[in-house]
Each structure stands twice: as C-alpha cells, then as structure tokens.
C-alpha cells in the first residue's frame, strides 16, 4: 500500500528530517511510528499524502508515484487517505459537523449519505452533542477527536494519524484505539499511527517503526514502544 525507497528530506532551513527511509507497508497493516521529539515522524507521515515532497527517493501509495504525480492529481490520492493531523487542522469557520462533512462534500457524496455518515462518526468519537459547535468552542481533546472523525468518515483505504491521542485522556484514547482497531480489522484499512503513547503501543501489539534523526532504527512486527525509562 505504501512503499518508500531511499527517501531523503532536507527542509529549506537545512534540517535533514528523513535521511534515507526504506519502508514497505502492506494493505491492511497496522503500524506504529515511534521516536523522540523532532525525530522525523511527522515528516515521514507528511510525505505519504504529499504535504511534503521528498528531496530525493520514491514514494508509492496504492501504486501511485507521489513524487512524479502532477499537482492536479494530488487531490485524488489524498481522497484515498484519511489524515489525523498533529495540529488538527480544522476549518475554523465551520462547525464540527461541517468540518467532518467537508471531507465528504469533496468527494461529491450525496447529501443524505453525508448526513447519516457524519452523525455516525461523530457518535463514534463521542462528539454527537457538540456537532453544532465551532472548533474554537471545543477543548483540545475534542478538537483532536473531530480531526479523527474527519479522517475516517470516507472509509479511506489508509488512515494516517499523527499522534491522535496526544490530547486525550487514557480512557478516551482507548476508545479511539478501538475505532481504529475496528476499521482495521473489519474494513481492512491500513493504519499508520505516530505516537508517544507507550501504554497503547505495548498493550495493543502491532508493527513498530522507530525513527531517530531521520533514520529507521528499528522495525519490528508486534514490537514494543521501547525507550524504557
């Protein structure tokens, strides 16, 4: 599903955030991406939906070469991928409901299927009662859950989540993990999740990719968080 070959990424300011990444992620896999702050996890993830372009190397998502992809084609790839952004990226002028619905309007889904599906996912993340609120009226964790709801609303082939539980209490986090588990197991959705949550990684075992200084330093099936204190 996702295939990176020799991917380098040097930002304009000279920081090398990916220093030769080689990764293959099969359809239906569940992958944790771990590593210290500033290791390059988000960069790794951003390259998968072309928020960032690699300086060199090749990236394939569902068979499409993201590096040579024309700008016009980018939206179509992105529609296969649901993204939970580390900074949420909610549209500030739209309500919770509208934010989630937006992802469905983009793919020109019929109105009534939008209504049903949005209500459904908001319920899933426990925000049905806040559907009419604006993002500024939400707590940090609630905003994060809106971002999660939006990422799964279209039942994408891949969900990429950048620290989706960073602002959530453990209980809510487990709830979200169950949502991911369900779509992974029932719909066969590929899930890539950058996280600092040791508990989760150690208790729900999946493949773990550890990144440090832009390099993959560990890649274990059924791995653990590591970095014991």
């Amino acid at each position, binding site marked *: 599903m996702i295939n990176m070959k020799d991917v380098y990424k040097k930002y304009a300011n000279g920081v090398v955030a990916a220093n030769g990444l080689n990764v293959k992620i099969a359809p239906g896999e569940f992958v944790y991406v771990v590593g210290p702050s500033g290791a390059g996890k988000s960069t790794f993830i951003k390259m998968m*939906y072309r*928020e960032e372009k690699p300086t060199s190397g090749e990236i394939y998502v569902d068979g499409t070469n993201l590096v040579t992809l024309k*700008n*016009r084609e*980018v*939206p*179509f790839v*992105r*529609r296969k991928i649901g*993204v939970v*952004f580390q900074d949420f*990226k*909610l*549209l*500030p*002028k739209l309500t919770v409901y509208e934010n989630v619905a*937006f*992802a469905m*309007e*983009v*793919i*020109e889904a*019929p*109105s009534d299927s939008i209504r049903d599906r949005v209500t459904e996912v908001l319920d899933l993340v426990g925000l049905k009662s806040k559907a009419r609120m604006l993002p500024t009226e939400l707590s940090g964790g609630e905003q994060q859950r809106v971002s999660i709801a*939006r990422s799964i609303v279209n039942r994408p082939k891949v969900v990429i989540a950048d620290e989706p539980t960073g602002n959530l209490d453990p209980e809510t986090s487990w709830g979200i993990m169950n949502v991911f588990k369900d779509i992974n197991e029932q719909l066969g959705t590929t899930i890539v999740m950058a996280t600092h949550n040791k508990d989760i990684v150690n208790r729900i075992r999946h493949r773990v990719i550890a990144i440090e200084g832009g390099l993959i330093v560990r890649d274990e099936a059924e791995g653990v968080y590591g970095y014991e204190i």
Partner: protein
Amino acid sequence: MKFRTIRRHFRESFKTLGRNGWMTFASVSAVTVTLLLVGVFVAIMLNLNKVADDLEHDVEMKVYVELAADEASTTALEDQIRETPGVAEVIYSSRDHELEQMISDFGDDLKLYEQSNPLREAFYVKAANPQQTAKVAQTIDEYPNTYEVVYGEGKVEKLFDFLNFGRTAGLVLILALLFTAMFLISNTIRITIVARKNEIGIMKLVGASNSFVRVPFVLEGIWMGILGSIIPILAVVFGYIEFYDYAEPRLRGEMIQILPPVPFLYIVSGLLFFMGIFIGIWGSFMSVRKFLKV
C-alpha cells in the same frame, strides 16, 4: 462537477459571506467607496467632455457678403455654403440685424446709423467638425459674392488645443482611476484571502481539488461585487437626477448643456455593476490561485 456540488458551492459562498462578518464588510465597503468614487468622477468627466463638445460646437465663422450682391445672389451664396462639404449650419443675418448687434455692443449712439446702415449682410456658419473650421472658411472665401470670412483665427486654434489636451487628460485620468479602483479592490480582497490562506491549505490537504476550493471564493467575490455596487449605483442615479433637475432649467438656452439622465445613467450604472462583479471575480480568482499549491 455534480449539480449537488454546485448547489453546495452556492450555499457555502453565502455562508462564508455571513461568517466572515467583518472581513466581508471590509471588502464590500472598499468596493462601495471605490465605485462611488469612480461613479462620481465618470459622471463629472462625461459631462465635462460634453461641455468641451459644446464649446467646440460654439465655434463659428462669419461670412460677409459683397455689398454689390443682390437678393438672388445672396440666396445663391447661402445655398452654395449649405452645400459645401463639412458645413453643418448656416444662419443668415441681415444688415439690420448686424446693426442691432453693434448697437448693443457699442452703445446707443450708433442708433443714428439706422438711417444709413454701413454694415454688410452676413452668414454665421458652423462646420460639422469644428476642428475643420479653418479649412471650410478657406473654401467659402473663394465663392463669388463672399467679401470676407472671419473666425477668430489664432484664438480658435488655441481653444482646440486646449480642449484636445483636456479631453486627453480626462481620458487618462478616468483610465487611471479605473485602474486604481481595480487595484484597491482586488488588493483588499486579496488581503482577506491571504488571511484565509491556512483554510485553503487545510481544504487542499483534506482532498479538495483546486476548483472545489476556488468556486466558493469566486462566488463570494461576485456577491461582494454586487453588494458593493448597489450604493454607488443608487447614489449616482439619484444624485445625478437631483443635479440635473437643479442645473438643467438654469442652463436652458445656454450654449453649455449637461447630459440628460437617459441613457447616461444606464451607462454609468452598467459600468459600476459590471466593474464590481468583474473585480470581485478577478480579485478572488487571482488571490486564491496563489495558495492552491498545497
């Protein structure tokens, strides 16, 4: 693009207009104020242009008839002048009429000449194109029974120079003003869109195509253009009618006239309306484009 998406874009554009409250107000009021300026100055300039035309058409030549000419040859001369290419208007002035004129200019003392009028008959002639007056005068001067043709040589050329300069300057000013207006409005729209640059980025990251992002912005631009042209149009229409009602009776019988409201006001209103819409579309379109590369 599916029909429901088009409907969605319309809905979206109205919603954003409302939710951006302050920004919308700022853009619309920039459009309003600028178009008001344009409307007022276009109205003034078109009328000044009219005044220039009137002044120009006031230029005439005076053709003195030979004293020896009898009635028949005078009529013949009149016909000949009338048929001269480039002549628009010929008015006959009898010797008595000329004398009256002189008395009114130089005092009643001259009344004594009513008995033995020393003056000649004359024709006051206007050229169809006033700037051709000199040429027409030359032609008429050749006719038999023409004693002399005078038209204020020197002065008239200066007047034409002045009017031509004024007209060119007016055109340049109006074009500069239109350009300025376009610049100011699209500048304002652009800033409001820059402020929404992050939103555009998010939409793109969530999978929206360029046109999906752009269409609501362009629609918004259209609404803002329409909203912003309402007040200027009303102001120019009612203001001008008011002004016309005030000025027209006072100018009745004068050589300078102002433009009647119809079709003048249709033209100005149309200009303002389409300018508003055009700049709205253009400003939005160009500004959004910059931020679509996400």
